[in-house]
Each structure stands twice: as C-alpha cells, then as structure tokens.
C-alpha cells in the first residue's frame, strides 16, 4: 500500500510539473510583451518597464519559469497588477468560499446519489426504478446555474428562507456561512447527483451479473445480502472514478455559480482578472484549480487501492 501510494505520489508531482509548464507556456505565447499587453496600447515606456521589473519578466524563459514555480512552492504567487497586493492574499481571501462550496456540493451529491442509485438497482424494472431513472435523466439535463436562478426566486425571494446571495464570512459564524452556501451547493449537487445515481445503479447491476454473485447466492445469501455484502464494494470502483471527475466539474461549477449568488470567491477573482488583463492572477488561480483537481485524482487513486486489493501490490 505504501509502495502504491509513493508511486502515485511521484506521478502526482510529475502531473503538477507538466501542468505548470503548460500553463506557463500558454501565458507565454501571448503575442508581444505581457507587460504591454496588460497595460494596453497607450502605455508609457517607463510604466511598461516598471511592470516588467515587477512581474519578473527580465531574464530567459527558463529562469522566469523557475522563479515562478519556486515562488509558488514558497506560497509567493507574485503581485497583482490591478490590486497591487500579493496574489496569495487575494487567493487566500477567496479560496475559503469556492473550495468549501465544491466540497459541500460533492458531499450532498454523494449523500443523495448513493441511496437513490441503490434503491433503483434493487428495484430494477419496477415503477420506483423507472421513476428514478426519469427524474435523473431530467436532472442530468438541467444547467446548474439556471436551476440556481430559480432556487433564488423560490427560496430566497418568495419564501425568504435563505438570503439571495452574498457571504457573511466564516468569522461571522460557521452555520451562518454554511447556510449561505446551501442554495449554491444544492444547485451544483443535484445535476451531479443525477449522474452519480445513474452510474451507481448501472454499476451495481453490472456487478450483480458477475459469477461471484451467483456463488454467493449458492451459499444461501438473499438477493439483498448479495448486494450489500458482495456487489456494493465492487460497484464502488467505477463510482469512485466518477466522484473524482465530479470534483473538477464541481470546482468549475462553483466558479460559475458564484455569479448567481454574488459570492466573492475565486470565480469573481478570475473573471475580474480576465477583464482587467491581470495575467498573474489568472495564471495563479488556474494553477491552483489544476492543483486541486490533480490532488483529488491522487486521493481517488488511494481510495481505489483501499477498495481493490488487486491494486495494492502493483
């Protein structure tokens, strides 16, 4: 297990390295000089030079790349041009909205999808199953941000159960903050829960066709026991893959849905960064998002090995 984990850790580092090169290269291909691009056409020579100095644009591509990467490793993401503060400060202020939102949504999605998928599989072909399948088919088709808009109309404007948007800050109380993330999390989670429930159902049904389920039934297990004792754990293997992929969808979704709820998260930061041509902010936030996705993939790999003994020895 330790060996498996260390091999995956090496591959995680390599992925991060490759991702950083890709991101750096994309920003490098900007036609012309990033500094004058940021400042626009009419910038003064000395302003541009000052920005170049500030951005660390002097020196060869390789040295600049290493300055960027080593800086990031020490928590230094550079200085935002528009805000004139370290990017790390900007990110730190916002990541504690986007990340909890994505995790909250992932938890909701999983909590909803597991029982729903399980029930549908156990009731295969019956009315419950057909109903669940129809509902999830619809759920998959709903764009989360559109769904979010109507959640706001119903639960915030009409019923006044939740506020229509904004974020009080974690200092103002944990539950208050959770409450303000609840509507966005539901909007994000329901479409993903529909996908996950469908995967869960089909994975269990696939597993039920396996020979070892027949062996288990021949030992005297009831259908239900065969599902809980043998099918579930095997069915988790494809489901884990999807949960891992959903995290990246949810993180991206969180960034989009922040718009609906006026949440001051990474989404706001990055879209402002784009409109104000604050490349250093864009670059850093993108790297951070990719870092999060790759780390989650690594955790999913570890979860695989915990579920499937065949992987541990490799």
């Amino acid at each position, binding site marked *: 297990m330790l060996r498996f984990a260390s091999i995956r850790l090496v591959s995680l580092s390599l*992925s991060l390295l490759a991702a950083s090169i890709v991101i750096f290269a994309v920003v490098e291909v900007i036609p012309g000089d990033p500094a004058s691009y940021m400042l626009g056409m009419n910038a003064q020579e000395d302003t541009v030079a000052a920005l170049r100095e500030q951005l660390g644009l002097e020196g060869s591509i390789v040295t600049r790349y290493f300055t960027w990467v080593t800086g990031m490793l020490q928590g230094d993401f550079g200085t935002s041009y528009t805000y004139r503060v370290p990017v790390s400060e900007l990110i730190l202020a916002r990541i504690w909205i986007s990340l909890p939102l994505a995790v909250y949504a992932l938890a909701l999605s999983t909590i909803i999808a597991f029982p729903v998928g399980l029930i549908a599989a156990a009731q295969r072909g019956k009315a419950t199953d057909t109903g669940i399948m129809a509902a999830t088919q619809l759920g998959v*088709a709903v764009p989360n941000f559109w769904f979010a808009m*109507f959640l706001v*109309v119903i639960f915030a404007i009409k019923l006044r159960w939740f506020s229509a948007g904004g974020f009080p800050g974690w200092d103002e109380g944990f539950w208050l903050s959770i409450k303000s993330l609840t509507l966005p999390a539901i909007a994000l989670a329901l479409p993903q829960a529909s996908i996950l429930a469908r995967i869960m159902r089909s994975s269990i049904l696939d597993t039920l066709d396996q020979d070892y389920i027949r062996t288990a039934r021949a030992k005297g297990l009831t259908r239900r026991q065969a599902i809980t004792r043998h099918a579930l754990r095997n069915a988790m293997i494809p489901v884990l893959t999807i949960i891992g992929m959903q995290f*990246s969808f949810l993180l991206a979704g969180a960034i989009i849905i922040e718009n609906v709820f006026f949440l001051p998260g990474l989404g706001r930061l990055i879209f402002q960064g784009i409109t104000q041509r604050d490349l250093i902010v864009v670059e850093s936030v993108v790297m951070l998002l990719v870092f999060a996705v790759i780390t989650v993939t690594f955790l999913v790999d570890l979860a695989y090995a915990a579920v499937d003994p065949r992987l541990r020895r490799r």
Partner: protein
Amino acid sequence: MRLPRTLILGGGLFAVFLAAALVSFLWTPFDVEILNIPSKLQKPNAVFWLGSDHLGRDILSMLMVGARTSIAVAIVAVGIGIGLGLPLGLWAAANHGSWLDEVIMRGNDLVFAFPSLVIAILITAVFGPSALNAIIAIGIFNIPVFARISRGAALSIWTLDYILAARVAGKNAVRISVEHILPNIANLLIVQGTIQFSLGILAEAALSYVGLGAQPPTPSWGRMLADSQTMISFAPHLALFPGLAIVFTVLGLNLMGDGLRDILDPKIRRSRR
C-alpha cells in the same frame, strides 16, 4: 426492427431544436439584431409568442438563432474530440504497453486535470473572449474522452483471434485499425458522441453565461440567461425559455444516446437474446 421509445422521443426532441436552428438561417419571426425598446419586456402574447427581452427583441427568434450557436459549438467540439482523440486512442491501443501508449495516456490524464472552464479561462485571458474559445475549450476537453474510450474498446478487440488472423494475412497495425477495429468500435463512438454532444451544449451555455463564449450581439442561450438574471423576479419568462431550451435539447440528446446504445451495443443485445 422496432426502434426503442427513448430513441424516438429523444430524436424527436432534438429534431425540433435542430429544425429551429436550420430554419433560423432563412426566417425568424423578428430580426434579432434590431432593438425595439418600446415593446420591451412583454409577456408571451400573440405577437411575441415567448415574450420579448429588456431591449424588445423577440425571445423565440433569439432562441432559434441561439440554437444555431449551441449546436454548432457542440458539433465542432465533438468533431475535434473524435478527430484527434480517436486516432490517438487507436494509436495507443496498437502500441499497447509501449512508451508511446504511456505518453498518450499520461497526456490524456494531464488534459483531464484542466476542466473545460479552466481551458476557456486560459484561452480567453490570452486571446480575448469569443465563441471560438468555447469551441476550442470544449473540443480540447473532448479529446481525452474519445482517446480513452477508443483505446479501451480497441484494446479488447486487439486480443481477439481475428486480429491475429489479419496479422497472419500480413496486415499492419494501421490497416488493422481501419479495417477491423474502427467498424467494431463505431457504435461506441456514436453513443459517446451523443453524450459529449449534450455535454457540449451544457458547457457552451455555462461558458457564454459567464461571458467566455459567444459575444453580443450574437444570441446564445447562456448569454440570454445571464441577461435575464437581474430581471428574474419580475420577468421570469426571460430566464424560463432559454433554460427550457437547454434542458430539452440535452434531454433529447441523452435519450437518443440511451436508445442508440440499446440498438447498437452488442453487449446489451446479447443479454437480451
């Protein structure tokens, strides 16, 4: 052979939107580029069937033109995914276990770490916003999807005896991939293509919603939703119809995918027999 109900229903739903998109090239009830402020924010009525927006444009006409954008972006993105992902997947499968396979698959993993939104953000930051960005971003994300699925399916076919027979008949990997592998994984690609098509519609809507996709004045469903957001409490129809358009198109495509899987996937067909 009787067609599955899902295929008929889904195909019908999608055909409506496809037809709307095609008709919009020839005719729309109103010109979507002409503003008509006096008749702004009308509820659905005899003139404006689905109402009008805050600039007095006809919602139905905008939906029709928007369908064009959505479908075009999704089709091209799926095309990019298949065009690049399929050969990569076949190539990796043909060289299974070699460093080439490894490089292609690790490259795939790397792309998977960049959700299409992130790619769109990067491209927009560099080249500025446009519908083309959405196409490229969704297209790039589709490449590893198709590479992975074609590699997986091709690998299982490479182990079959008829591939050995073809090799004994002196055929090389390229010819075998084209003559034997491709026809036998085509079904899978069609089904996956439908799924990616629907995901493409959703992704395009999300990207134009946050301003990274089609730019005004080109109407797009996501853009219409973004514009309607501040008016949702007093003009909910502005948000309702574009959203329903997305839901029904995606639903139609997904149902079509399910139906196609039922008639094309030999695994399911076998278990039915």
